[in-house]
């Protein structure tokens, strides 16, 4: 019933094809990095990073409109903000240990507050706030797709090179350090990968729901698999399938695609969690 309502326009509208391709492309970093985030239990760090992205988006928008710095891309602002908050959280959790949760909360809220102030200082761009917060996969441009694809290639390369160390650090970082692995270096690498993945996922589901798309397909895959490599593949396939399904189901009734995607993702996660029951 919904399928023809989506497939017909898909054949003719380029923006739908870009959206579908975007969902498939983000699924690769989403499945790989999301799996590390779930097993290393840093979902809340990912949440803080994603919300702090608003500061970067707001700053770029402000500079473009008020100061005419048009060459700056919002995605670059988002990436800088995400990497900066990842570094702050990583540094605090490694050096100070205590009160990590407080710092995560602070980065989360301060990032959003800075973004909201900057957006309110920028004339005529209030509408963008909604697409930052809730995502708009239908607005993806070919340039975005190239950036998302490049990021996917970078993530796959890093994971292929350093999977052994990342796995060991996630499983038992004390033992890894005794085997000569510089564990804090790999922790920062993991936070950096998380930050960049968050940035591309923002374009699909928006700041508020990124944490769900990053972690729930991986957590669902964790219910279904027994090895990290399998978990990553299943998580990526789920992420691609769920984004496509969210797009298809939301198009006909004109619902927000990001929110529908997250509802499907959440439903699948809770269903497998109940089915698995330990």
């Amino acid at each position, binding site marked *: 019933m919904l399928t023809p309502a989506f497939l017909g326009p898909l054949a003719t509208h380029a923006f739908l094809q870009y959206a579908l391709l975007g969902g498939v492309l983000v699924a690769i970093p989403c499945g790989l990095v999301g799996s590390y985030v779930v097993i290393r239990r840093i979902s809340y760090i990912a949440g803080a990073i994603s919300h702090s992205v608003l500061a970067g988006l707001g700053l770029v928008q402000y500079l473009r409109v008020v100061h005419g710095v048009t060459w700056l891309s919002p995605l670059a602002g988002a990436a800088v903000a995400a990497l900066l908050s990842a570094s702050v959280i990583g540094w605090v959790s490694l050096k100070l240990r205590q009160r990590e949760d407080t710092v995560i909360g602070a980065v989360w809220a301060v990032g959003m507050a800075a973004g909201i102030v900057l957006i309110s200082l920028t004339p005529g761009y209030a509408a963008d706030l909604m697409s930052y917060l809730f995502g708009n996969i239908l607005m993806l441009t070919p340039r975005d797709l190239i950036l998302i694809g490049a990021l996917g290639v970078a993530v796959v390369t890093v994971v292929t090179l350093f*999977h052994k160390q990342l*796995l060991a650090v996630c499983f038992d970082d*004390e*033992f*890894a350090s*005794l*085997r000569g692995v510089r564990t804090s270096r790999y922790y920062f690498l993991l936070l950096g990968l998380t930050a960049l993945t968050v940035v591309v996922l923002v374009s699909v589901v928006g700041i508020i729901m990124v944490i769900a798309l990053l972690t729930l397909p991986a957590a669902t895959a964790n219910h279904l698999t027994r*090895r990290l490599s399998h978990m990553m593949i299943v998580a990526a396939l789920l992420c691609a399938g769920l984004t496509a399904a969210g797009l298809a189901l939301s198009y006909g009734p004109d619902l927000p695609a990001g929110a529908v995607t997250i509802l499907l993702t959440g439903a699948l996660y809770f269903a497998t969690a109940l089915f698995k029951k330990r």
Partner: protein
Amino acid sequence: MTSVPNPVLAFHDLDFGYDGRRVLSGVNLAIPAGDFVSVVGPNGSGKTTLLKLALGLLKPTAGEVTVFGEKPERARHRIGYVPQHAHLDPLFPVSALDVVLMGRLGLGPRLGPWRGRDRDAARAALAEVGLGDQADRHFAALSGGQKQRTLIARSLAGEPELLLLDEPTAGLDAHVEEGFFRLLEELNRRLTIIMVSHDLGFVTALVRSVICVGQKVVVHPTSAITGQVIADLYGADMRLIRHDHRCSEEGHEC
């Protein structure tokens, strides 16, 4: 005390404390190659601290630790460390072989996937601990004893000369524990073993020396353990069970 030639592990006038609380003071000990040592003492006495000092994970406030005559950080690759498995995530998506392969870090390639010889070494280590047929099982699905053996295999995969075990028999059934000690006996033929015990683990006949951690740290050959030593350590009268009448090996002194 320091008459042991070329000790595998030695503490010299070592003090350790944190937050102003002194945990260990004036510790002198020297463990010869091939020894089988049990570290005993009441909860919170600093047994695990002793292991972490030997690994260089903790730094002494005064004095010195040497492992194979070097600083612990420089000798780490020659130590096989077997932590307690209770702190590991039970849902973690790894097979027994994946876990053992982590012991090859530092020996295998730095970049990219494991090579065939690393997998062979990991499988050999699993076979040595009696889990040769469990390589592909989910780590979480293994029993407590199998998990403990997997962690020993992980440390063996790193080709160590000294094995440090932290409460390896905690939570194991008596009959599982017995098989476990047989494995350690086998390994002791080529490795020096230091094991922290949650109880008076030296009741096993394998142990040749005992490090008693209390107000003072004292090393005893097993034959010298008397009711008085135990009473001094635990502050209560405890009965000593002797499993045999074997005298300890030579070369130990207090």
